């Protein structure tokens, strides 16, 4: 990106002043070199975010910003509902809760490093994932409703975890006020054989600390 498009506030803060339909400035956090390497699509998308109703103060892009869906990935914005603020699916992120979980193995790096590939292969064999995969859990209408209503507690009740797991999950794995009746029959159909699989998620990673 051309840095001349920005008003540089400090070493790592670059402002795009509101023009056209922008309601607030757009701000990108990056050093000069990183900013130059960012995709011009980030500029287009973060200035579009700045046009959304109810946006508060500014549309922000973090140093990892890159081309996303509507919002740039790495984009941040707050919206005031009393000012007509929107809920943006792009801002929430389409991959939210896509099976990403961190598990403490108790292994240190020296123990893990020689076995990383074998562990990844074992996970790949053990955890069903991808097109055509089938897990061991198949939900009927009643159990689907129980899962959608009960969340992680439902999983515990089925014997897929213990109480301590709930303490590690946001909202204890069950958002109050959720309205599962809005989950469409088609979405339910896609999900009913995917419980217990990585079928709808991105990837499993084994990272060394």
């Amino acid at each position, binding site marked *: 990106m051309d840095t001349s498009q920005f008003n540089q506030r400090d070493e790592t803060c670059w402002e795009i002043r509101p023009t056209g339909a922008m309601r607030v400035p757009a701000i990108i956090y990056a050093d000069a070199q990183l900013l130059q390497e960012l995709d011009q699509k980030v500029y287009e998308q973060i200035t579009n975010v700045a046009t959304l109703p109810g946006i508060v103060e500014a549309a922000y892009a973090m140093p990892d910003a*890159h*081309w996303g869906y*509507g919002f740039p990935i790495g984009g941040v914005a707050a919206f005031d509902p009393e000012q007509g603020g929107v809920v943006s699916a792009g801002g929430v992120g*389409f991959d939210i809760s896509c099976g990403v979980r961190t598990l403490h193995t108790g292994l240190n790096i020296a123990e893990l490093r020689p076995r990383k590939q074998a562990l990844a292969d074992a996970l790949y064999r053990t955890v069903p*994932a*991808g097109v055509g995969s089938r897990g061991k859990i198949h939900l009927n209408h009643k159990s689907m409703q129980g899962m959608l209503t009960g969340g992680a507690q439902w999983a515990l009740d089925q014997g897929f975890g213990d109480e301590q797991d709930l303490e590690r999950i946001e909202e204890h794995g069950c958002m109050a006020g959720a309205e599962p009746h809005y989950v469409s029959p088609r979405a339910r159909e896609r999900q009913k054989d995917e419980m217990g699989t990585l079928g709808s998620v991105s990837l499993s*990673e*084994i990272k060394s600390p």
Partner: protein
Amino acid sequence: MPLNNQLLTPHWEHFEHDADIGIRGIAPTLAQAFEQAAVAMTAVMTNPEPLTESNAVVITCNAPDNELLLMDWINELIYQTAVHRLLFKRYQVEIADSKLSAIAFGETVDRQKHQIAVEIKGATFTELHVYQQPGCTMCGRCLVELIYGYQSI
């Protein structure tokens, strides 16, 4: 291939996107462009060439404009792939008055045989466009969101 012939021959392409991948169908008619976009979608997951046509699925979609119709069409195929575990090789599409009627031909997923690279989560509004190119060919494109397998780091 000379440019004119290339434009007149139905074909498909992928295009790059940072996070996912774009599919594009190009053909003399809108219906053929939709067929080609669907082949491009299959080709994101696996090579469509060796697939058989042992299964046929009838699909209909309605939408107020061609862009939304393309997205509905691709999302319907993604749904069929996910729920009925089918991979489609070929498509017969008819479009009239914003209504799409189609038959999709393919076979049941065999994970050993088909070497599936990724799964597709859904078609998106990003880069969604249906338009007429110079030479009067139709082009339909959109971005599909992918689900990757696994990797070790």
